[in-house]
């Protein structure tokens, strides 16, 4: 395994890769990453069951960045709410078994969901309380095609209103760029309450319709620096760093092409992206040619 401490803040997401979980974990490790974002599908789709998947993750050298994704939780009533609470409990149990510090929840797209922000905040607070005994933080993300909450501004507003210590926001560069949310809005967000940052680039300049957003988000994302939004990504990461964000950056790259090429090839693209962000954007210390840094980090 290549040691790469200087990219320790960056991680890959299993959704960028095809194949069984064990192969994904190994490829991510081999590329020098130390963390991985997992999806519920990685666990429940395991042929030997989700507990076996958890054991595979635990036996790897990777730490878990977060667990995704609880959808359409907030704003429902009666039996729909009760149903989603059951789903959330299952997600929290898997998240806890993984030792994942963060559960990602994204804003509702359901037309059955209320737009009353008092209700949305109450439900998010309940979700946070459900996650709390397990030591899990909930990162709430405004999907750019969310029905009522569709950007960081809205997500932060309801998170502040819900006011729970383990409830914060997840920032996804894709949704921010798609909705043309200016980086300046981050200044209103408490950096301590940003529980996850997901980064992705994409190839088109603009995505106008909601349908196009969904299509792009789910099939055509690329790693930071590979698309046409590198400058915006640079600006976003620099701003997050400047305001004191010291958490993880995960590459949330859904890409149909990447799921049909060999895993090491995809992971190498991700590694180049991490190196660009670490060296060129954040000016992190780079390993010395004589490998001094490498030995130091191995000795730890």
């Amino acid at each position: 395994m290549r040691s790469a401490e200087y990219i320790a803040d960056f991680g890959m997401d299993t959704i960028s890769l095809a194949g069984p979980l064990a192969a994904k974990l190994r490829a991510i490790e081999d590329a020098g990453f130390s963390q991985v974002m997992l999806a519920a599908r990685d666990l429940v789709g395991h042929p030997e069951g989700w507990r076996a998947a958890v054991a595979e993750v635990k036996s790897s050298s990777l730490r878990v960045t977060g667990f995704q994704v609880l959808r359409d939780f907030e704003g429902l009533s009666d039996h729909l709410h009760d149903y989603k609470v059951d789903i959330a409990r299952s997600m929290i149990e898997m998240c806890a078994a993984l030792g994942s510090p963060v559960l990602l929840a994204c804003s509702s797209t359901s037309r059955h969901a209320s737009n009353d922000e008092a209700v949305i905040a109450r439900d998010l607070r309940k979700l946070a309380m459900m996650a709390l005994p397990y030591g899990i933080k909930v990162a709430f993300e405004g999907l750019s095609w969310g029905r009522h909450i569709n950007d960081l501004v809205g997500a932060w507003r309801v998170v502040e209103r819900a006011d729970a210590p383990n409830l914060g926001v997840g920032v996804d560069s894709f949704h921010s760029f798609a909705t043309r949310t200016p980086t300046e809005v981050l200044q209103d967000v408490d950096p301590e309450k940003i529980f996850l940052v997901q980064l992705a680039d994409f190839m088109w300049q603009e995505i106008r319709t909601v349908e196009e957003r969904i299509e792009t988000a789910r099939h055509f994302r690329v790693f930071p620096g590979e698309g046409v939004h590198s400058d915006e990504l640079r600006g976003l990461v620099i701003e997050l760093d400047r305001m004191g964000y010291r958490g993880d950056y995960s590459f949330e790259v859904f890409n149909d092409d990447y799921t049909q090429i060999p895993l090491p090839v995809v992971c190498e693209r991700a590694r180049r992206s991490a190196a660009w962000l670490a060296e060129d954007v954040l000016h992190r210390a780079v390993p010395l040619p004589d490998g001094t840094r490498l030995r130091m980090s191995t000795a730890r």
Partner: protein
Amino acid sequence: MTALLERESRVDVSNPLGIEGIEFVEYTTPRPQALGQVLESMGFRPVARHRSREVLLFRQGSMNIVVNAHGGAPAQGEAPQIAAVALRVRDAGAAWQRVVDLGGWPVPVKVQPMELHIPGVHGAGASRIYFVDRWREFSIYDVDFVPIPTVDPKVASVAGLHWFGIVQYVGSDRSADWCAFYTSLFGFTLLPAEQRFGILPKGSVLASPCGGFYLQLIEPEALVVDDTGERLQRVAFGAPDVPAAVKALRARGVDFVETSELHTEARGALTRPALGGVMFELVHHG
């Protein structure tokens, strides 16, 4: 707010569950007799046995402790664990429903025929919080327990010992989380930092909405690796006269911690750990 609640005059907004103290504390242990001896040295007496399980009820004054040998070995080796705290509330079903509606995890119920269904939610670590409303007119123990013959169910307390509180060990940077849990789900109030009790005043202290008992949350020391997990670590008894209580308990064979940093004082005392971790704190309290 008051006007909005004119039809619900029984709902006290500062004590939404109608909490009125601790009904019992439950320990689980694979060695119930050994724990029983420790409890007896502290002034408790076994007064009843559970009808269907290997569970004993110990009593002292107004305090009940349930020793459960039924649940198998506790998570961490042989040491007894505080497995549950049962709160006295106005209406157990309503209290449970409210806490679950706010995000509490319901505890699955496993009762035998003719046993009481005591509703509960998950608390710290593997512990549970139960809700009991039948404590005024008759007791839950009349239903689930059989009195031990010849034992007086009323047990005088040693030196006026009574429930004072429970100490919960929490993870690093987890105090704010647990404060939110107890304040928003149960109506507890966080006390200001200058309001502390006893000889171990670390961490955060929350007062119950009835004002009758306290929860103390303690994080690991900075830079110390502590992977023992979150749990209810000990109970504290209030004593009107701590030195007198210490003297009475010493006469019963209880050892107290007496070091230069930590020792018996007028404001409190701590028993030496028994059975790999069971300890009791005394706190000066009328």
